[in-house]
């Protein structure tokens, strides 16, 4: 899950506490995770908001905390326009690397939950890059419905 998706839960759900509780269960069950760089990005862009507070609360319960160095390096060397050269906390390349490493480990159903769906002036969106790498993506709404929950 990327930081835009976590913020989206906070800003678009009818009851974000309830949704975050469900997400916490998914994190504990190793069905959902986010990388360390997402936590740092949330702290910078949404300090004091429900999204970073939730991420900080559950971060120690994650089973998987991010991509190994080799996977990060592969993404950075092989994926064009995924790095925003002037944004020190942008987690996008690490989210992609995390998903790619899990996929390469043979996990059968890796899906990136992202609201980073539109290309922007300084880099491609996470969704665009995932499509290029054949990594499935869902929006928060799609994920919630796929999990059988009402949204928003």
């Amino acid at each position: 899950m990327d930081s835009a998706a976590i913020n989206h839960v906070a800003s678009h759900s009818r009851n974000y506490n309830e949704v975050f509780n469900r997400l916490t269960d998914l994190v504990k069950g190793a069905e959902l995770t986010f990388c360390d760089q997402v936590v740092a990005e949330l702290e910078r862009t949404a300090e004091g908001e429900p999204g970073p507070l939730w991420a900080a609360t559950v971060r120690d319960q994650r089973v998987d905390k991010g991509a190994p160095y080799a996977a990060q390096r592969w993404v950075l060397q092989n994926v064009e326009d995924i790095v925003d050269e002037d944004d020190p906390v942008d987690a996008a390349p690490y989210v992609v690397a995390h998903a790619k490493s899990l996929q390469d480990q043979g996990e059968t159903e890796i899906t990136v939950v992202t609201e980073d769906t539109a290309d922007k002036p300084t880099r491609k969106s996470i969704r665009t890059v995932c499509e290029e790498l054949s990594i499935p993506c869902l929006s928060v709404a799609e994920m919630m419905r796929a999990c059988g929950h009402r949204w928003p």
Partner: protein
Amino acid sequence: MTQSGVEVEDVAHCSKVEPQQVSAWLSGDAQPTKTQFRRLVSYLKRPEAFFFLPRPPAREAVPAAFRHPPGGMREPTRVELEGIRKARRVQQVGRWVADRVGDDRWRENPVPAANGQPPREAAKVAKRWLDWSLEDQQGASSASAVVKTVRSRLEERGVLTLQLPLGSEGGRGFSLHDEVKPVVAINTYYNNEARLFSYIHELGHLMRRTDALCIGFAATQAERWCEAFAASFLIPIAALRDRVAHLYGADSEVTEVDQLRPLAAEFRVSLSAMAIRLEELELGREGLFESIPRTSDFKRQGGGPGTDTTRGAVRLREFGEGYFGLVLAGEQSGALRRQDALRYLDVTEGQLRKLHHENIEPFES
């Protein structure tokens, strides 16, 4: 390293290693440790991911003309290079959003090109374009109010205006010409009177359709032209002659710095600008400019009473309402997601909400 204006020795110092070690990193014979790498990232102010890219970015962070300034001018300082990089990013984002929200203000009505006009004629044209009169200077409550007015008029016409801390060693400002979103940036180390002059000076560069980093006074022909342009714009000959005659008598010459003060205050310009103008028009004694302390154009240190130093307020002062309004329009139109708007404004959700309450409105075409 080139884009940040640093040498091997600087990187070695910040990373606490010998210069030979940095050379080994550059040649690929060695790699920094995690701690050294973090120091390097922090020093060069780039994301960690940047250092793993397969090649340097194709687009130069700083225009070549700035890195090798003409006419024996000095090379830009590290702080200036950071400011220029920030301004280029603002311009890149601004242009991208402008194309998507239909902001054609500059494209449809750019300041007319100077086309070899003498500065005085160009100043008349620019004043019409900016809808500017001497009353805007003399009728304002303070120099700060005049700066706000000129900034707002430029933004209304599609120019992005930045106020950046470029340091005491930094130039007074710079401009980045563009067909869609030109940028002028002013060094906040200087006081409001100096900033006003710099805004108009940079407008002169936009009329010349060139990028320019302005270091001190009149080092090149282009700089001299822009100085004369700004002087004609802000200190018209007839009005100045009238005031000198009124204050000191007909055919008088201003000889002392203290005599400069009321004139500079009335036209809302710095002592330096007024001295140069008086000398140029032979209304001031030769050498008057040299008698003014260099620091007279510097801002008094420390924020004024009530200055909001929260990150949101600082970013708004730096980037200007024009850029904020444009990015918010990008978000409103769906071209940018909320997260992206926050990223490009470098503020948090809470800070942006607070600015909304202070009536920072999205641009409307």
